[in-house]
């Protein structure tokens, strides 16, 4: 029942982070001085080893937030820190998993070589092979090393992406609605696999989803974004026991209460 005790320094610290895009000639409405604000003054942190799920309706800037954490997009206001240092580009120790696995994998490389993509430049041959094998074992794909992505199902391709991320031995996984395109059963099985991976590697996870139940099931904490520009509506602790289980956990009164709270925090759409 106890919360995960966080290590000393938070992995991510965000202090009044905002994001606004300059308007181009093809821009949409909601201009403010010719800029479109996507995120407004978000302040929160992510602890080492915890799973933070970020939940919100479409258009609330969840993906943009992830991109800021990933160092792919610089914020327009406020401070964003990774391990104490300001984020200035994709950092060592962060790994991303995208929703569109088909285009995020290289379809002309085998599974093993896809997993190796991030580390082959940085490590020697034998080391690379070992890390690839370990990563594939972690996601249960050790028998598919020589297959091509297009030969695999959607769920398996997503696991390849996760393996690629894990091969980097990251301290944090950033995941952008990774299971949204998969069927319910595959989704459930991958959720549990993610929990197990976190258990074995101790990595932190920032997980974006629009599925409220998924957010509560996976998270140690749930952050809710609301509105456009997205604002932090709430950060809720999830005091459910680990390890979680698909059926029993989801039946617990605490789960249902949390689900209700998250739903309210997201707000009703007009």
């Amino acid at each position, binding site marked *: 029942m106890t919360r995960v005790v966080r290590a000393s320094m938070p992995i991510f610290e965000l202090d009044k982070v905002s994001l606004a895009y300059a308007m181009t000639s093809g821009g949409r409405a909601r201009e403010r001085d010719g800029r479109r604000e996507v995120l407004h003054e978000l302040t929160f942190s992510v602890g080492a080893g915890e799973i933070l799920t970020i939940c919100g309706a479409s258009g609330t800037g969840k993906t943009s937030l992830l991109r800021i954490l990933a160092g792919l997009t610089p914020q327009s206001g406020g401070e964003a820190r990774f391990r104490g240092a300001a984020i200035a580009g994709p950092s060592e120790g962060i790994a991303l998993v995208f929703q*569109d696995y088909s*285009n995020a994998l290289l379809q002309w490389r085998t599974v093993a070589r896809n997993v190796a993509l991030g580390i082959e430049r940085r490590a020697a041959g034998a080391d690379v092979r070992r890390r690839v094998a370990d990563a594939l074992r972690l996601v249960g794909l050790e028998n598919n090393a020589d297959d091509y*992505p297009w030969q695999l199902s959607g769920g398996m*391709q997503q696991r390849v992406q996760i393996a690629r991320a894990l091969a980097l031995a990251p301290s944090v996984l950033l995941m952008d609605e990774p299971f949204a395109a998969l069927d319910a059963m595959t989704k459930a099985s991958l959720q549990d696999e993610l929990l197990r991976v976190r258990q074995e590697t101790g990595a932190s996870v920032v997980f974006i989803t629009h599925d409220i139940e998924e957010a509560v099931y996976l998270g140690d904490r749930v952050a809710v974004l609301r509105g456009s520009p997205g604002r932090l509506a709430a950060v809720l602790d999830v005091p459910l026991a680990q390890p979680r289980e698909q059926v029993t956990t989801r039946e617990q009164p605490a789960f249902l209460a949390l689900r209700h709270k998250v739903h309210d925090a997201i707000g009703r759409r007009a």
Partner: protein
Amino acid sequence: MRMLAAALAWSRGTLPLLAALALWQALGHVSPQFPPPSTWLAALAGLARAGRLAPAVAETLRILVISLVLSTVAGFALGLVIGMSPRLRQWSEMLLEYVRAIPQPVLIPVFVLLLGYSDLMKVVVIGLACVWPVLLNTIAGVAAIPPLTFEVARSLRLTRSDTLRKIVVPATVPSLLLGLRVALPHAIIITLVMEMFTGAVGLGGLMIAAQRKFNAAEVFGLLVLVGGLGLLLTGLSAAAERLLLARWAPRA
């Protein structure tokens, strides 16, 4: 066994062609301008015996392959450079469209004048004619790479050269192969035109020479030979493309 049946079924379709040839053979003696197909073979054999056929074929193939390879490499490299830079793409768009619209054979006299009768002239002329499919297909191929794939490269902190080598090049190889397949017939045509125009050694030169001698049998015989060569080359390139693309095959 099934392949044999399929081949037989397909060959039924050659009937009109064979019938026409048979008719020609039967009526051929009527006019000296339409010698029967049997004389064509005799004419070709005559050329072969005189030792003129093989060198011509060799020369045509030699210059064709060299030009095709060089222009494909150049077209691919240039296509990658232009494709990766939206700015370059916009600046070069209209220029490329216009140069491409110039009927290629028109450039033959131009380059004969500029470069004289030389291998360089031949390679430039043929290369210029057949670089377009590869160049334009490569540019389109680069543009078609999903932006997400580049994001992945950035998030994995791949260097620029790694991104080019490991992602852009493999992703555009199918475009390259398609461009090459389209370029081959153009290359064959322009090679022949160039040979006919300059009277050079090669199949085109032989054909024009035959025409000047009013040797109809030779003209038609060479026509069939060239047709067969075209068939062979396009068949080979299609097969090669299928083999190479097997690896990049059904995308999810």
